[in-house]
């Protein structure tokens, strides 16, 4: 049987997975650009974000056409609705990557600043967790794995602890009081905030995946 409708849904899912991969790559590049002080890589992140925006618009348009032409119901309807919202989160994560890339350019365009080793370690740890949440959220979507999606909230809670540790380190070392150092510290706290936001948006993606798979609205109400 030829089933154009369900073929179109599969195609749409593939578009979301492709968009997710672009976003995941940009998060990785943005973080690497700041950790290695590489403004060149940062500029690539900013440029690649256009592709993510294009995907967002293209997917929204496809969802509209499917809704208009096929009036999907049940699981199919939940998929379309979830995709519509997941791409917004993905687009936001893309924007946050751009913000991180801009931090890199601000900090490293002129000269290299040396990050304290302890601080660097915490940032790396945060980045690893955040990237892992994003990738698991995307995997939960592509593999339709609700067990995996359920794990994300828990992973996200360790971000808050790391953030606290990071601030403590920064207060301790800010005895130097040099203007450069204060600038650095401000930017690092911004970076930690960006990473946290990527984590939050990724958890939200996971919640939408759960709603799609289970039909249970409780997953998209906050803090259940």
């Amino acid at each position, binding site marked *: 049987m030829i*089933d154009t*409708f*369900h073929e179109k849904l599969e195609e749409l899912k593939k578009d979301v997975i492709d968009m997710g991969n672009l976003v995941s790559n940009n998060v990785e590049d943005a973080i690497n650009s700041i950790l290695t002080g590489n403004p060149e890589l940062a500029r690539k992140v900013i440029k690649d974000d256009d592709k993510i925006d294009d995907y967002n618009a293209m997917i929204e348009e496809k969802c509209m056409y499917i809704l208009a032409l096929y*009036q*999907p*119901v*049940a*699981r*199919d*309807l*939940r998929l379309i609705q979830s995709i519509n919202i997941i791409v917004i989160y993905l687009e936001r994560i893309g924007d946050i990557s751009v913000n991180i890339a801009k931090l890199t350019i601000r900090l490293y365009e002129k000269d290299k600043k040396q990050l304290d080793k302890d601080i660097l370690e915490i940032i790396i740890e945060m980045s690893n967790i955040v990237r892992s949440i994003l990738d698991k959220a995307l995997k939960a979507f592509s593999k339709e794995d609700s067990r995996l999606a359920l794990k994300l909230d828990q992973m996200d809670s360790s971000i808050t602890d790391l953030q606290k540790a990071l601030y403590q380190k920064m207060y301790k070392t800010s005895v130097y009081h040099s203007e450069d150092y204060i600038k650095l510290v401000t930017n690092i706290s911004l970076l930690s905030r960006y990473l946290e936001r990527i984590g939050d948006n990724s958890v939200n993606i996971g919640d939408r995946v759960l709603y799609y798979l289970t*039909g*249970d609205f409780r997953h998209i109400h906050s803090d259940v």
Partner: protein
Amino acid sequence: MQNSNYLYNSNILEVKNLNVWYRAFQALKEISLSIPRHHVIACIGPSGCGKSTFLRCFNRMNDLIPGTRISGQVLLDGQDIYNSGVDPTEIRTHIGMVFQKPNPFPKSIFDNVAFGLRINGFKGNIKEAVESSLRRAALWDEVKDRLNKSALTLSGGQQQRLCIARAIAIQPAVILMDEPCSALDPVATLKIEDLIAILKEEYTIVIVTHNIQQAARVSDYTAFFTMADDRSGILVEFGKTNEIFSNPKDKRTEDYITGRFG
């Protein structure tokens, strides 16, 4: 008072362990569900799963088909319509029916609506009753100047609304509709759907439809029927329409409404 408890029962119809056979063939198997008063209930399911058979149980139209056998109960306001003392024609004054193809009598528009009133010995003002039924069926403005013209001069959509006027003229409690829009164009269909929304204020409506979007649009509750391995009809899922269409509990329901059936 003998029937005092039914007044507190919000379910106008209750079906309990209903089985229907056409000679040796079992068309419906162990159907149980409750139909709440002043709501629209849609019956959906693949062709041959027994939707029309189910509908015909409510006004004992299956009695007219030779070889039909029924077991179980159909309670109208708590009373089993299959009890031996019950007169099927009496049941049909409480439960009206509208069919797939509009089937007006080859009489005038007026007489089509007045007919049911006359044979039921209606004592009031027939003219007023006809006008009120035509108004409630949202047809009055289109026919008030040609009441004595033949009903067959009306369009299909108008004929269907005339049949609805005829059904409601005798003030039934329940209106059964078997694919009432399948012979109508989208505009006439929308008119009937709007009418259903208005009629449920006064009546309880059970509608069979093949158009699942129509079921989603017009009904408060949806019953999904399918065929068991021996091809007899079974009720898979009955629930609030918005839940059935956003999150059906049974995979067979989901496969059917999302078009993955067969």
